[in-house]
């Protein structure tokens, strides 16, 4: 389960950005979506990573340096 204060802080950010576009009921659904996203984050944060565990993404400078 995500930390409640983290949910509230990030929810306030969303409300500030988009609060005027949604109804109270829709905002409640957005909150559920946020909790699900933070649930996934909490699960991932529980896995130990080492300093050398780099992001798995493709990046190389442009050009023919090799």
């Amino acid at each position, binding site marked *: 389960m995500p930390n409640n204060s983290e949910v509230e802080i*990030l*929810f306030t*950010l*969303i409300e500030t*950005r*988009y609060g005027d*576009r*949604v109804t109270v009921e*829709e*905002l409640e*659904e*957005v*909150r*559920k*979506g*946020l*909790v*699900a*996203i933070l*649930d*996934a*984050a909490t*699960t*991932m*944060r*529980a*896995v130990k*990573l080492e300093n050398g*565990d*780099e*992001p*798995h*993404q*493709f990046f190389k400078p442009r050009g023919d340096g090799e």
Partner: protein
Amino acid sequence: MKPPIYTPISELSKHISKGKVSPVELTEIFLNRLETIGLGLNAVVTVTRSLALKQARKAEKEIEEGNYRGSLHGVPWGAKDLLSTMGIPTTWGAEPFRERIINTDATAVKKLQEAGAILCAKLSMIEFAGGMGYRQPNASLTGPPRNPWNPDTWTGGSSSGSGAAVAAGLVPFAIGSETWGSILSPANNCGVAGLRPTYGRISRHGAMALCWTLDKLGPLAQTADDCGIILQAISGPDPLDSTSIQKTWKYNPRPPKRRQRIAVLLGVADDANLEVKDNFNKAINTLKGFASVEEIDLPDLPYEAITRTILNAEAASAFEDIVNSGTIQHLTAPEDHWGPYARTALLATDYLRAMRLRGKMIKAVTEAMKPYDAVAAPSSKKPATPIGEEFRKVAPGATKDIMGAIGNGCGLPAISIPNGFTGAGLPTGIQFMGKPYEENAILAIARAYQGLTDWHKRHPKPQDA
């Protein structure tokens, strides 16, 4: 000769090359079906009649003159409406883009044009390929895409029209896309073959981006063999897509010389619908006729959380302008008006953690799959759901789909083919997920299975369609 509505490409192409089937007449047949059955199923956004007939006449002339280009020459097809096409609207399934024209041809479209295939339609899809978090089928500018096996049920998505069009015999094949489930789901629900290739196998240039490191294009067709033929035509390096695989890929339709090895993830069908589970178990017994089947387990990692976080973060960025501009307020599904807001608060550190864990996931999955040609599982845990039913009743991110999470997160190829029907007459599917770059291995298994079964030879009755 009977109209070759459901004739596999390998057979159809023989008739076309020998002049026994006219590409112009063939195209007329499929255009008429698209304009009648297709519109009734909400499977079609645009029928490209004048372009199709122009391409068909050209193909017919070339073939008559002895300039036959290969298996797709003169064969009609349909494109998921996220592939850009010169001079034809590309809507991404979204009402605000109904008239929008992106004046370029996607690389896949160009390659099929070069192969002599005939573009007959832009096919319906879930708006933004589901990128706004839809929860029910009525999330497309066409209205809810209806399943040819029972129009009161859903096609699956987001390549909804691609699945329906192949199943209803509106085109011999279609191109769809998958970020997570969007080829395998309609292939399952509509009872057709759907191939999700290795990430990078087909150039994404000119296709809508939902999630740059997860998006793949792929074919939906009558058989696994058809998928191999189509993949060869549209794969290959592309300077316009830096992630495209630099090696060319050749389809190998010959059976392997050794007994194939298939793995099944421990408990993968435990929470599936009973009929889905039953059909899967029967399919496993059939597979044992030509392959070994063993249960395996994966190390404990948050696979679904990793792939879901990557998808959420990249989609938040890919659609930032569309969300902030208020364009989403005009989408069809009410939940898509606010669905994307939550993920705009996803932290950069969490996205990077997901990308770091992705490396661990790839290592774990690669190790587990090393002795095997494929991992088998039900393509979906349930058959097509009712057209008016909310299928995602829980908050986004909570859907259990380990195969989808590791398959898409690791960029692995997979094919879904039909493996039976429910008592209500809805198809179910089995998927074979392979090692990266080894599409030929999963195609060989799928082909062998289709050689022993006839599920792919059953089609919806015309009155149903």
